[in-house]
């Protein structure tokens, strides 16, 4: 049997991503969770972390979490709770040109609010540039920090990791530098637009 794309490459397929993306009508309404967890593993912290009941009860510990879109507020608490770092929050209603993406980020130094960041896709390719909009440090001694980045709208379902921009620019020979620079111009053009959509994440 040929293994599927996820198990042979570590990258989920488009169908898998589409399957965990809410319908268009819900996407317009504000922040929503994207749970990129496609394999049955014995794990349940996401379900217990949600205080809105938006992650449906698991019948078995190995069940894959299912989201109730009407209940999800996009607060992002599950992003930090997921041991697999497989949960993201996307807010496509943030502004006309930019979206917000909550990304779990376990690297030091943490970017500071306002820092430019490179955005990486699920294969680690640099696909654009964004700005650290809000940085939620993990709870000591072991919480996962979450960085909410402002990203170009078209990257809402693509960008899944970030790299501090200064550090990244020192690395020579990256094929996507040009694309990143173009995207960076775009991002800085939209910088003055500050929507309120992204501010409803849970404070600790």
């Amino acid at each position, binding site marked *: 049997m040929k*293994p599927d794309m996820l198990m042979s490459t570590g990258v989920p397929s488009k169908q898998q991503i589409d399957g965990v993306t809410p319908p268009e009508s819900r996407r317009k309404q504000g922040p929503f969770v994207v749970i990129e967890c496609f394999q049955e593993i014995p794990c349940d912290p996401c*379900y217990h972390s949600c205080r809105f009941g938006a992650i449906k009860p698991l019948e078995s510990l*190995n069940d894959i979490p299912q989201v109730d879109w009407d209940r999800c507020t996009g607060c992002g608490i599950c992003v930090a709770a997921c041991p*697999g770092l497989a949960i993201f929050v996307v807010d496509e209603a943030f502004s006309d040109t930019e979206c917000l993406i909550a990304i779990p980020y376990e690297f030091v130094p943490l970017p500071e609010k306002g820092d430019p960041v490179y955005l990486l896709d699920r*294969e680690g390719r640099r696909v654009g540039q964004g700005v650290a909009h809000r940085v939620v440090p993990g709870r000591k001694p*072991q919480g996962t920090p979450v960085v909410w980045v402002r990203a170009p709208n078209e990257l809402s379902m693509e960008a899944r990791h970030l790299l501090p921009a200064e550090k990244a620019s020192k690395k020579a020979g990256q094929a996507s530098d040009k694309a990143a620079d173009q995207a960076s111009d775009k991002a800085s053009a939209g910088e003055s637009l500050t929507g309120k959509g992204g501010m409803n994440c849970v404070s600790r």
Partner: protein
Amino acid sequence: MRRTELAIIGAGPAGVCAALEAASHGVRVTLIDREEHIGGQLVKQTHKFFGWHEKSAGTRGIVISRDLADKVKDNPGICFMGSTEVLGYYGDDGVLLLEAPAGIQLLEPERLLVAAGASEKMILFPGNDLPGVYGAGAVQTLMNVRGVRPGKSVLMVGSGNIGLIVSYQLAQAGVKVAALVEALPKIGGYAVHASKIRRLGIPIYTRHTVKEAYGKNSVEGAIIWELDDNWQGIPGTEKGLDVDVMCLATGLTPLCEFLWQAGVEMAYIPELGGFVPLYDEHMETTVKGIYVAGDAACIEEASMAMAEGRLAGLAIARSLGKVPDGEFSRKREDSLRELEELRAGPTSEVIVRGLAAMRKRLEEHLSQEHSSRQAHQPGAKPDAQQGNQQRKRVSS
């Protein structure tokens, strides 16, 4: 000679959970580890664990090990002997020979639990003896315990959870992971761990293996190549990688020397990691009074090791007459259900198959033993093999 009700070899997740469970029923426990710290491999695990929210899911291994160590230290029923190597187990006398910081000691336990963990498997390729070729455990010790980077650029070999997690930890420590190779067509560990390192830009090459490592005094580079359906390298597919470290995460095999020495029936069950002891659902081996838990019983995640440890600790306390019937059956059911649910998913299919094979071997062994016992008249001199199987209960 010192005596103890329960000696546990190995203060990792299985051994510590067994110690805490047994001590909670009033068993006096001696917990032995060759390292000075309590927690075994948990002290290197900086990632968050899966499993149940109520147990330790979402908690990092380093935090779990600190919690467990505190509980052991606070427990007057547990004597922890750190920096102590178990040199051997002498079943006829029921005695453990220990090398402690204070010198050689003998310990006579009423029950013995082997929770010694596992050792890493090595793979063959030219250059595998060069400095710079590490086991994944050593890389984790260097980075996460000692705070030392193993090198600048790493080739990771093996896509089980260890290979995936250590790749991620290397990236966190600022070390470049040039590639991860996996001989199988499929990633062995959890998909979420694999996706995590792909986002960092670490390539995963399935159906690939190491052709060779080269370098004058240490690793200066490695060549990988693709494998065909017969596991042979395909000429022309070679890729050179500029690395100074190769990290082997190519599997673990149970550490069961003491069980061999004690005359426990062993079986080769590849699904469980190699030679493993035969043991019943209470983790008791074919030698009465000798128990096993954790990776020494079968190679699995730490969540399962902790559950097995609790079950073994309970069964041992019960065998010493310290657990009332009702409490025993309730806690036993809880533990068995916990293990069953942890193993219910597709990622545990191989383990479940291996455990079934092991249990079948155990049944065959028990029925053989039964019929050979019947064949001999009482008082007849047992043959050598049977003598081995009919060892007396440890030191009773």
